[in-house]
C-alpha cells in the first residue's frame, strides 16, 4: 500500500506546496510548529479540500482536483488521532472506543481487550471523557482510531501529552502495528526519538514545503539533512540480528560492524532489529580505547565530514555495511584529524541505547 | 377651544364610525379618536379606569355591567343602533331558505357545519342560539355548530366554503360577495339586537355628550344605514 500526496493550498499568509510518497510503514512528517503538518494530514483525511493536487491511497484516488474527485471523509477509512483528542463527550470511554467498529468491516484486526490493555485504559471504560486527564484522553483517542480498523492511520502528535513511560509502552505497539499489519501510518511528531524509532520514511517540512523526503535511514544518516532535522536530533540506524540474551540483562546483537551489547530487548534470537544511534551519543577515538565503562566499540571509517556553523561537526562513518553519524566538536575533529578515509573507533554506551531507539527492522 | 375625546367602540362599527368621526371632527374642530376592540375587552378596560369618554358596545350585557358599576354617566345611555341576524350560505346565488319554527336546518347542513360566533359569549352567537332555540331547531343543530371568536371569522368560514351556512349580522353579510343571504331570522325569535352607547362617568368633557348626540343625527344616521344598521329612535 502506498499513499501518494501532491498538494497546494493557501490560507491567508500561509501557502502549502507539498508532494511526497508514503510507502508501507510509518511516514513521519517532521517540521516546526506552523510548518503545515496538520494541514497536510487534514488534506489526506479529507477534512480540508485543498486548492489543487492529487491524493491516492494504494491506487484508489482520494482526491484529484483536475478530475474533481473528492472522496467523502467517511468513505476513506482512516484512523485519525487528533492533536486535541476530540473524544465524544456524550459517550462513555467504551462507547468512544467502539464507535468506529460500527462502520468497520468484521475482518480481524486489533482486538478490543488487547488495545485496552495495551493503552492501560481498562479502568476508565465506564467513565465519560469529561473527567479524564490529558494523557488519558489521548490514550483513548489512539484506541478509538486503532479499533476502527483503518486502511491508513493518521496521527498528529499522538504521544505529546503522554509521559515517557507511557510513551515507551505505546511505541512498541505502534511498531508492531507498522510491522505486522499493512496499514501505512502518517505520523506527525516533534519528538525525533519517536520519529527515528518509528519512521520508515521521513518527510521534513519547512514553511509549507517539503525540504527532504525519503527512507528514514537515508535521511537520518545524511549529514546534509542535519540542519533541517536539528543538530540534536540527527542520528543513524544500525541493522542488527539478535545473537544472544546474556544473563546480566543485556542483549548481544550482531551487526555488520561487530557485536553490540544493549539493555535487554524482548526478541527471539535471530530477530532483526534497527538500532537508532543518536549522533551525539557517539564518541570517536583514533585508537581502540581500553578500560571504559562503555561496552561497545565499533571499528569504522570516516566517509564524510560536515563542519557546522557552530562549534560542532557531523562525521559520517561506515561501520560494516551501515552508516553512522557522530556529532563531535570541530576542535576534536581537527585534533583527531578526522577526514574521509580515516579509520577510527566509534564508542557507544550500552545504556544509551534506549528502549525507544530499538525497533523491529522496518 | 378644540377638545379631544376618546371613543371606545365595538370593532364591528369601524367602517361606519370612521366616516362619522371624520365628519364630526371637520364640523366641530374637535377630535374624536376611536379605539376599536371587542366589547368585553373595552368594558373591562373601562372598569380599570381607561381614559374613555364614550362607549359604544355591541353587547347589552357589558353596558349593563358598567351601569351597575356606576361607570357610565347617569342618563346618557341610549340604544343607538339595531341590527338583525341572517342565515347565509356559501356562494353568490344560493337558494333562499324559509326560516320558520322547526325548519330543517340540520338536514340542510348534512354532515357539514353551521358557522356562528361563540354561542355563549359573543353577542351574534348568543342571538343566533336564542333564535334557533325559539324556532325549536337548536337541539338538532347544536352538534353541527362551529363557533368562531367573532362574526367576521364565522363569515370567513362560510365565504371560504369551509362551512356551507352560517349565522351572522345582516351588516356583515351584505358586504361579503362570496356568500348570499338565504333568510332572515324573525325579529321576535331572539332578544332585540341593540348597540347601546353612553358617556363614561369619569369623562369631564362636555364634547362627549355632544358626540353622542351627533351619532343620532341625520348625517350619522345615513352613514350607519349605509352599512346596514338600523338607527333606533330615542
Amino acid at each position: 500500500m502506498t499513499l501518494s500526496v501532491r498538494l497546494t493550498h493557501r490560507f491567508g499568509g500561509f501557502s502549502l506546496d507539498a508532494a511526497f510518497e508514503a510507502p508501507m510503514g510509518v511516514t513521519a512528517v517532521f517540521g516546526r510548529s506552523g510548518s503545515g503538518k496538520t494541514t497536510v494530514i487534514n488534506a489526506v483525511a479529507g477534512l480540508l479540500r485543498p486548492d489543487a493536487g492529487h491524493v491516492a491511497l494504494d491506487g484508489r484516488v482520494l482526491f484529484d482536483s483536475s478530475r474533481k474527485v473528492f472522496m467523502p471523509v467517511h468513505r476513506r477509512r482512516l484512523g485519525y488521532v487528533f492533536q486535541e483528542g476530540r473524544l465524544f463527550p456524550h459517550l462513555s470511554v467504551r462507547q468512544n472506543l467502539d464507535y468506529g467498529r460500527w462502520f468497520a468491516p468484521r475482518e480481524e484486526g486489533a482486538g478490543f481487550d488487547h488495545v485496552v490493555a495495551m493503552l492501560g485504559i481498562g479502568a476508565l471504560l465506564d467513565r465519560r471523557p469529561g473527567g479524564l486527564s490529558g494523557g488519558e484522553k489521548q490514550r483513548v483517542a489512539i484506541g478509538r482510531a486503532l479499533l476502527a480498523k483503518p486502511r491508513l492511520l493518521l496521527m498528529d502528535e499522538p504521544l505529546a501529552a503522554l509521559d515517557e513511560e507511557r510513551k515507551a509502552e505505546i511505541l512498541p505497539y505502534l511498531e508492531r502495528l507498522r510491522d505486522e499489519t499493512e496499514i501505512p501510518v502518517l505520523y506527525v511528531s516533534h519528538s525525533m526519538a519517536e520519529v527515528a524509532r518509528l519512521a520508515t520514511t521521513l518527510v521534513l517540512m519547512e514553511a509549507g514545503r517539503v525540504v527532504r523526503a525519503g527512507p528514514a535511514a537515508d535521511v537520518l544518516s545524511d549529514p546534509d539533512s542535519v540542519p533541517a532535522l536539528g543538530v540534536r536530533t540527527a542520528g543513524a540506524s544500525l541493522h542488527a540480528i539478535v545473537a544472544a540474551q546474556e544473563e546480566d540483562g543485556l542483549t548481544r546483537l550482531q551487526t555488520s560492524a561487530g557485536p553490540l551489547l544493549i539493555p535487554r530487548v524482548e526478541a527471539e534470537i535471530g530477530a532483526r532489529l534497527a538500532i537508532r544511534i543518536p549522533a551525539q551519543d557517539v564518541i570517536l577515538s583514533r585508537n581502540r580505547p581500553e578500560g571504559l565503562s562503555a561496552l561497545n566499540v565499533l571499528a569504522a571509517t570516516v566517509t564524510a565530514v560536515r563542519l557546522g556553523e557552530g562549534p560542532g561537526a557531523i562525521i559520517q562513518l561506515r561501520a560494516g555495511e551501515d552508516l553512522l553519524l557522530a556529532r563531535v566538536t570541530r576542535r576534536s575533529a581537527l585534533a583527531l584529524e578526522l577526514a574521509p578515509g580515516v579509520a577510527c573507533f566509534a564508542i557507544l554506551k550500552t545504556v544509551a541505547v534506549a528502549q525507544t531507539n530499538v525497533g523491529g527492522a522496518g | 377651544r378644540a377638545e379631544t375625546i376618546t371613543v371606545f367602540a365595538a370593532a364591528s362599527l369601524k367602517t361606519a364610525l370612521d366616516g362619522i368621526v371624520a365628519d364630526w371632527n371637520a364640523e366641530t374642530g374637535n377630535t374624536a379618536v376611536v379605539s376599536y376592540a371587542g366589547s368585553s375587552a373595552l368594558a373591562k378596560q373601562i372598569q380599570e379606569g381607561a381614559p374613555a369618554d364614550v362607549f359604544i358596545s355591541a353587547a347589552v350585557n357589558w353596558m349593563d355591567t358598567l351601569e351597575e358599576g356606576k361607570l357610565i354617566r347617569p342618563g346618557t345611555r341610549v340604544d343607538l343602533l339595531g341590527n338583525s341576524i341572517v342565515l347565509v350560505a356559501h356562494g353568490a346565488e344560493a337558494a333562499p331558505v324559509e326560516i320558520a319554527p322547526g325548519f330543517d336546518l340540520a338536514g340542510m347542513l348534512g354532515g357539514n357545519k353551521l358557522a356562528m360566533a361563540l354561542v355563549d359569549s359573543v353577542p351574534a352567537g348568543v342571538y343566533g342560539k336564542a333564535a334557533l332555540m325559539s324556532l325549536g331547531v337548536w337541539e338538532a343543530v347544536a352538534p353541527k355548530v362551529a363557533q368562531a371568536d367573532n362574526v367576521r371569522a364565522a363569515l370567513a368560514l362560510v365565504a371560504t366554503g369551509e362551512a356551507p351556512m352560517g349565522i351572522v349580522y345582516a351588516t356583515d353579510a351584505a358586504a361579503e360577495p362570496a356568500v348570499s343571504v338565504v333568510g332572515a331570522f324573525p325579529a321576535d325569535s331572539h332578544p332585540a339586537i341593540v348597540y347601546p352607547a353612553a358617556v363614561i362617568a369619569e369623562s369631564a368633557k362636555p364634547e362627549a355628550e355632544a358626540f353622542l348626540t351627533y351619532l343620532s343625527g341625520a348625517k350619522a344616521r345615513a352613514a350607519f344605514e349605509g352599512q346596514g344598521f338600523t338607527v333606533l329612535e330615542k
Partner: protein
Amino acid sequence: MLDAVPGGLGAALSPDEWRAVTLSLKVSFWATVLSLPLGVAVAYALARHEFWGKQALNGLVHLPLILPPVVTGYLLLLTFGRKGMIGGFLDQSFGLVFAFRWTGAALTAAVMAFPLMVRAIRLAIEAVDPKLEQAASTLGASRPWVFATVTLPLILPGVIAGAILAFAKAMGEFGATITFVSNIPGQTQTLPSAIYSFLQVPGGDAKAMQLVLIAIAIALTALFLSEWVGRSVARRIAGS
C-alpha cells in the same frame, strides 16, 4: 386518567371543560411530536448548510411569529381548508381533513410553535463543535450516522428545550386555532378557546381563571420536566 384528578379544580369542571383540557393536551402533544423531526431537519439545514432559498425558508419559518395569529389562522384556512389548495388535495388523496377537526388544531399549534422550536434547536446545533463531527466521519460514519450518533445526542438538551417551548406555546395558542378550526366543544375547543369564551361574558372571570390555572399547571409541569431532563443529560455529558 385526568378524571382521576381529585377534588378542587377537577370537581368544578363541566364535562365540556374537561374535554377542552384533554383535547389541548392531545393537540399540543401531537403538534410537538410530529413537528419535531421537521423542526430538527430545518434547524440543521439552517445551521449547517448554505443553499438557494435559505433566507426564504428562514423567513417562512418565522412568519407565524411575526403575523397576528388571526392572519395565520386565516391563511391556514385558505390553504389547508377543504376548499384550499393543499387541504383539498390531502382530503381527496388521503382523506386527511384538517378543517373543524382536532387535527387542524394540531396543525395550527405546530405551525405557530414551529419558529420557537427551530430557533432553540438551531442554536443548539450551532454550539456543537464541528470538529467532533469531523472526528466521527474519519471513523467511517456517513453524514446521517454522524448526525444520529454525535450531533443529535449533543443537541438533545436543545431539542428538549425546543420541544417543550413548542408544547407550551401550543397549549396557549388561541387566535389562529379558533380562526382555522373554530370552536366545537369536544372536537376543536381547546383550553384557550374555553378561557376566551368565559372572558367574553360579564362575571366569567372566575371560571376563566380556574381554567388558566389548569393551563399553567400543565405547561409548568412540562417545563420543569424538560429542565430536569435537560440537566441530567448535560450532567451525563460533563462526566459521571
